[in-house]
């Protein structure tokens, strides 16, 4: 039987920390850094953190906006607002709508922006012209470019005129089955420039020697794309997936403008559009807050799943 001697016990009192070290512990190694980042921290706190915390608090009250000094009651109602949201078919439909949107928009965004970025990376002539061409829709206000799409996809629009007898009935934006896909196409087209820029930056980091090695091994353009480019830009792909999902889940302007407030028949109503209706138009910010909290959880779950399965952690 082996016995192990216990380590000598340390019963001495801890030394008192000197004031200068205590201050350093509070302010960090570089107090100036804290000072310089204070405005940003304040900005984050006031513009993001406070409203989010307030919104969560509001979702548990019978809350409405009131005049300063008005005597109103805003009792705690527990999960009542959440129950109201869960029981509202319009909410389920809006999440279904945004699900359809994401299923179309996210893969298209990732696929097209990677393909176009790869092509643009190899363009020799008029490179700036092509890059600006893809970027212009992104920097143009949605309100302005929506008019172009209305011109294209209205009943008497250019697309239907080209399609002739093949035009859908009812037309694109008033067709329950086609309204959301049309919006998804619009948003994909509009945001493409931004994601192409992300991929163009990522492509600069893919070593040229890898392409040369692949060429030496006899790989063609397609093989090089899938074996060198795609793995090489994986961190950017994860980012594009996440950004497209988060942006898509916050969809508001496009259904509001393209389909006149979520029509036809609620087929293009997004959760954020519903929040606007309930919170601002109908004066129920408590219910709208509950919907917002559910939306945040929904986005976090989807983003986490994407991050997990796309290998974000490794990259």
């Amino acid at each position, binding site marked *: 039987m082996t016995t192990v001697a216990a380590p000598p016990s340390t019963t001495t009192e801890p030394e008192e920390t000197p004031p200068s070290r205590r201050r350093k512990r509070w302010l960090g190694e570089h107090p100036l850094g804290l000072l310089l980042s204070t405005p940003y921290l304040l900005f984050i706190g006031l513009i993001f953190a406070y409203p989010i915390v307030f919104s969560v608090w509001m979702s548990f009250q019978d809350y409405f906006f009131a*005049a*300063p000094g*008005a005597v*109103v009651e805003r009792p705690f109602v527990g999960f009542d607002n959440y129950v109201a949201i869960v029981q509202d078919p319009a909410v389920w439909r809006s999440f279904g709508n945004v699900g359809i949107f994401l299923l179309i928009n996210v893969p298209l965004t990732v696929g097209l922006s990677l393909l176009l970025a790869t092509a643009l990376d190899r363009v020799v002539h008029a490179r700036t012209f092509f890059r600006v061409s893809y970027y212009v829709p992104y920097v143009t206000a949605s309100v302005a470019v929506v008019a172009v799409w209305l011109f294209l996809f209205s009943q008497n629009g250019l697309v239907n005129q080209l399609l002739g007898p093949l035009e859908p009935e009812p037309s694109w934006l008033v067709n*329950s089955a086609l309204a959301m896909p049309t919006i998804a196409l619009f948003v994909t087209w509009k945001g493409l420039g931004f994601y192409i820029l992300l991929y163009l930056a990522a492509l600069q980091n893919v070593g040229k020697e890898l392409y040369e090695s692949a060429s030496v091994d006899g790989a063609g353009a397609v093989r090089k794309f899938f074996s060198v480019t795609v793995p090489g830009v994986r961190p950017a792909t994860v980012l594009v997936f996440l950004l497209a999902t988060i942006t898509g889940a916050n969809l508001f302007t496009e259904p509001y403008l393209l*389909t006149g407030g979520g029509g036809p028949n609620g087929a293009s109503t997004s959760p954020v559009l519903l929040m606007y209706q309930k919170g*601002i*138009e*109908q*004066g129920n910010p408590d219910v709208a807050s509950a919907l917002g909290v559910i939306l945040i959880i929904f986005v976090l779950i989807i983003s986490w799943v994407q991050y997990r399965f796309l290998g974000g952690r490794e990259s």
Partner: protein
Amino acid sequence: MRRRMMMTAVAATGLLALTACTGGGGDDGGEEGRGDITIWYSNNAAEIAWGEQMVEAWNAEHPDEQIKAQEIPAGASSEEVIGAAITAGNAPCLVYNTSPAAVPQFQKQGGLVNLSEFDDGDGYITERSGDVADQYRSADGDFYQMPWKSNPVMIFYNKAMFAQAGLDPENPPLATYDEFLETARTLVSSGASQFAINPAPTSEFFQSWFDFYPLYAAQSDGTLLVEDGAATFDDENGTAVAEFWATLYSEGLAGKEQYQGDAFADGVSAMSIVGPWAISVYGDDVDWGAVPVPTQDGTAPEETYTFSDAKNIGMFTACENQATAWDVLKFSTSEEQDGVWLEETGQMPLRQNLTDAYAEYFEANPAYQQFGDQAARTVEVPNVPNSIEIWQTFRDGYSNSVIFGEEPVADFLTDAATEIDELAQG
């Protein structure tokens, strides 16, 4: 450490309390307050012209109680702008563009002054507007809005298109649903117009005020959407109106898609549902006529009701000089100012015996005469809790059933009525 935190908390609480005291007023304003006031008015040219002369006239006579006026700030809708101003505590004294549908919400927010609490409040309002005023009383029986002006909606029609379709442009057959539908079919099948009529088929809560509601008011002899806390439309009148519109949509006589622009002005539709503001807008560009909205079996014009499309004046609790505001409110709705309003805008002051009071104007402007007559038979949106949510609920069901035909009309009416009954209870 704990002691220091406690002291900080106490100091912060004290500071907040102090701030609350200084921000809460404590001055001698309120209902007795006199002095300068701010007002907002609508941002269309005719209303601005009226507002400017009204302010000038008042300011010339009241050097110590001046009006500072401005157009209502831009926003998605005036209701949202006013709601935000109430919450922020910077609403003006008076807003000459207050939608009756938003009044219950503003009242709940504690944003509106109870006009009935002025000594002559109730008396002045009822004397000016007569029985019509009762529609604008809140649930407690008091007035939180001054009934101001209406735009009783009627059917405008394009005489040239009717003539092109072989219809009599001076006596168009539009009185009954059968006549209206037959006329609509003729207009479209003849190629005179793409659509017979084209109200906005979009989902905003207020769109039903310009398709279903005027016809329901006419069909039901002036019944509101909600009366005595319950929906009224799930009956034979509501069914008749909804079926009428459903027929127009299903036969392609009305468009299911939002038109970018004014379909009537652009000649895309031969008819439109609009108020008298349209007279000056269409003016000489369209050779137009106007008739009351149809009913199932036809109703005499002098008995036909319609939707008022009114805008009223709200006085807001943020106002410090409410006594001045009340005087301004009465001045701006006086017989003289209402006359100028009529001249400038062509919209109808909510004043009893309107056509008699301004007989000369209506004689000189016969186009407005029938709108003046119609102004006495209008229905308003019901002044009930959750008003806007009620209209959104109705619109969603209407869109689903009547416009897109995805649910039987009877089911829509019953489902919407059940939901609205619950919402109207507050």
